[in-house]
């Protein structure tokens, strides 16, 4: 459990750092080169200012607009409920799961667990619906397929944002399916205690993976990019 907490903390902070640092670099590119000695300090100040922006009412309004636009474009009509279901269920599952895994030694129990299981059902339903109705939006196109053709390391270098989003979408779906399968598996009278334990571990780590995937996906999809 301690190992998971360490891995979770390092990976989430690492991804957050990477994503914010990329934005910081983009944002400060226009201002010319920042000296290496003051780079860390400038980054922290920038991070503070961003945080202030996020908690402001303006930021909430912007998020609402961006999400509204996204929903209208990608989930028109009744399909918006799929997006709302997926987004809200994922938010609850991630928050409750990570909180209890990291801060409560006993793990999840009581009403949060009951909620976790029930919301998990909504998530699985929304995920399946998303893949059915919106999976086609994330098909690879010719240019992206060419990346695989010229398979070389590092494979993700200079990936287009669209391609990265598609990869993240399918990764999200994959981890989501693992989440649903392991949850279902622990309810069936099939698997032994050892397998159940292994499934809990798989559930936990795939949950971490799906959170990391979601962070990057949200960052590159919903957070407006300031042009240099």
């Amino acid at each position, binding site marked *: 459990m301690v190992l998971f907490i360490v891995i979770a903390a390092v990976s989430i902070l690492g991804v957050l750092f990477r994503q914010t640092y990329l934005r910081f670099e983009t944002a400060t590119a226009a201002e010319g080169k920042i000296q290496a000695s003051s780079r860390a300090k400038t980054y922290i100040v920038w991070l503070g200012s961003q945080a202030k922006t996020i908690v402001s009412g303006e930021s909430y309004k912007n998020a609402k607009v961006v999400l509204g636009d996204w929903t209208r474009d990608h989930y028109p009509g009744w399909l918006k409920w799929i997006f709302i279901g997926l987004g809200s269920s994922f938010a609850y599952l991630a928050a409750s799961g990570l909180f209890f895994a990291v801060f409560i030694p006993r*793990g999840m129990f*009581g*009403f949060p667990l*009951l909620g976790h*299981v*029930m919301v*998990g*059902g909504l998530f*699985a*339903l929304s*995920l*399946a619906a998303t*893949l*059915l109705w919106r*999976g086609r939006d994330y*098909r*690879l*196109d*010719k240019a992206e*397929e060419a990346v*695989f*053709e010229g398979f070389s390391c590092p494979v993700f270098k200079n990936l287009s944002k669209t391609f990265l989003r598609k990869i993240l979408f*399918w990764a999200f*779906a*994959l981890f*989501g*399916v693992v989440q*649903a*399968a392991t*949850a*279902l598996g*622990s*309810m*069936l*009278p*099939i*698997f*032994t*205690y050892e397998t*159940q*334990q292994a499934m*809990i571990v798989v559930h936990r780590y795939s949950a971490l993976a799906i959170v990391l995937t979601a962070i990057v996906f949200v960052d590159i999809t919903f957070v407006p990019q300031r042009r240099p």
Partner: protein
Amino acid sequence: MVASAIPGSSPFSTHTKWKRAKKIKILGILGIGFALCSAFAATTNSQKWSGSQTTPVHQIPLKDEFNQAIVPTEKNPLPFSARYSCAPCHDYSVIRQGLHFSSGTAQPAGRPGEPWIWVDERTGTLLPLSYRPSKGLWNPKDLGLSEWDFTLLFGRHMAGGGITEPDDKEMTPGSRWNVSGKIEINCLGCHNAARRQDSSEWAKQVLRENFRWAATAASGLGEVGGMASRLKPTWDVFDGPNPDDSEWAVAPSVKYDKTLFDSKHRLFFDLSYKPEDARCLACHAVAPVSLRKFEFEEDVHSAAGIKCAGCHRHDVSHVMVRGYEGEAADNPALPAEDFTCKACHLGDVTSKGEKIRPGRLGAPYPLHKGIPAVHIERLACTVCHSGPLPAKEPARVRTARANRLGIFGVADWTTELPAVQEPVYLRDKSGKLTPHRLTWPSFWARVKEDEVTPLKPEEVLAAAGDILFPERYVTRILAGLFNVAELDGPPALIMNGKAYELNVDGGLDATAYEGEGTSGAYFWAAKKDGKFLPLFADFDPANPETSAEPEAKIQKILEALTASEAAPGKPVLAFKGFLYQIVENYLDKAEKKDPAGPAPRFSWLKEGQVLPFIPEAERAMIIALTGSEQTLTEEQVARVLKVLGETDHAFISSGKMFRLNTKGTLEAREDEAAAPVAWPLAHQVRSARQSLGVNGCTDCHSFGSKFFFAEVKAAGPLRTESAAVRSASSFMGLSGIYHRLFGLSFAVRPAFKVVLFICAFVAGSLLLIMFLITLGRFAGIIEKRR
């Protein structure tokens, strides 16, 4: 402890005491030296196992408590002493450290065990005691119970040694150890393989205060007569038989079964290295109250042939493996974790979690298919695999020590109370739910501010007097009527649809009465051929021709009642307008109108006042209590509290504290002292196919789950409507509302699983398709897009 050693002489020989004492001193020193050497030799030589798996034949000379060889043909031989008979090979002082012999120590011995329960039915005392500190248990020392008192109360089910064998300096005034002797460790109580070993006999000898004779009598090696309890406190084992009394105060003596000895006075002990289960069960038996003997299922391990001692092992120290999880932390010297459920059924695991070999004897490996891992982590194995299955209410069981089981004879030793209930699930030290047995304490107490101090039953009895004996109003009449030869049979009282008769203990037994005349007042009868007849036939007192014979009978009855024990006045009989009484040894008959009617009515006449044979309140008590396990009514409790002191006394029972309020009426309130006392249960273990959960999650998770919502109702000696009632979940420290809702979720869970499966299948299939297409294109199998 070695008092003397007189080679070649019986303690009852013709030596004078002072001569003997002198010899004792000299030889005693030699004896001690010899004993120490023997003990040392035993410790150093015999405690190490050579590897032989045979048990040596125990054809050995018996020694008495003075380390003298016992010659069974001698006159008045002493009982054998385990300390000295076993000493040449087994170190008594080491064995004395054992779990069964150290209950008097204040050292905790791991998780709580069953407490000793001081039962006094008359005062309604059910006081859980232990020298080992544990929540809800009272230390006997704090209650003023000496080792002597404790031994008399519980020696019946003790294994000897420890507090039943105190050092001379620990002997308290008022004790009679010098008469009774001490109770040495009763080795044969466990290790005797002979079927003659009799735990009943042990209990009876202990109750007779024949402590030093108890082991000999119980083992069947000899026949013990006499009662130390009837001897003067100055009697000493050297005094021998009581020359003044061969009927009542007979000194205990033993007659050995000479056929058991060889020509060298050696006796063959039929011993088992591992005690038979029956020996353990003499003190550790537990059985549901509602079952008949043939319906009782034994522990699955016992049924499979595993003996108690197969798991509960120990070395010569007798420090025993109890076999619960976490025992190794409580007692690091023990190989305890090797004998837990897990150790046998899961096998050994390395620090990395890899299994290296199966458990002991290749015990079945549980797969626990479909049981979420949290159950294994948060529940003890015994939750699902031991004790009765959860029901609407926990099962009432009797335990050997609490309810005095296994003592057979004419008298019934078994007590209905304390009411022990199981299973009730509580958390152990590690936070795991564990099935427990539970009982509710009951006692009178002095309450000063918040401090509760239990009163001894004798203090309550002394203060309460007749209040606690309402049946005496009936028994003294019935006992008096027993002496009337003219009656048709044994007397009885017919009241409220029941016939009340005297029992062998001088109390009352009630049986159903379906005859006439039970409505309204009670009447006295005689039992003939199973039928209850009036004490005398109906007659007309005004007619001298027909009244002579019945009046002669009335005279005999009134005479007998006059002489009855504690008669509060002169007995009189009112019958059809006449009043009969004995005046100067003659039956006096006077006309007197009786408003009660024509039925015969007996009363006491005291200083011109007519008193009923059975006052109204006592009648109600007798009706309420006779034939039930309760021994007290709220009315009695209120009366006794008034006598003890209204403001600073209380009666604790049925999970509540009963006190008198300012208006003088009884009031029940919550108090920590009234909380139940619980201890974990481990047996009877059930097989996997009979375990809890074998029928699926709903065995426990349902809206009205018996596991979570069984009703635990406090039971005790008080007849009350105010008894505490708790839900099983409250003992677990769990939210009842949550588990109701959680249980409810299992009603829709099958549908939920189907939905989840379909979603996972659809999403997984699409993922697979996407993966295969991409793979196909990458491999060139599927045509690339243009």
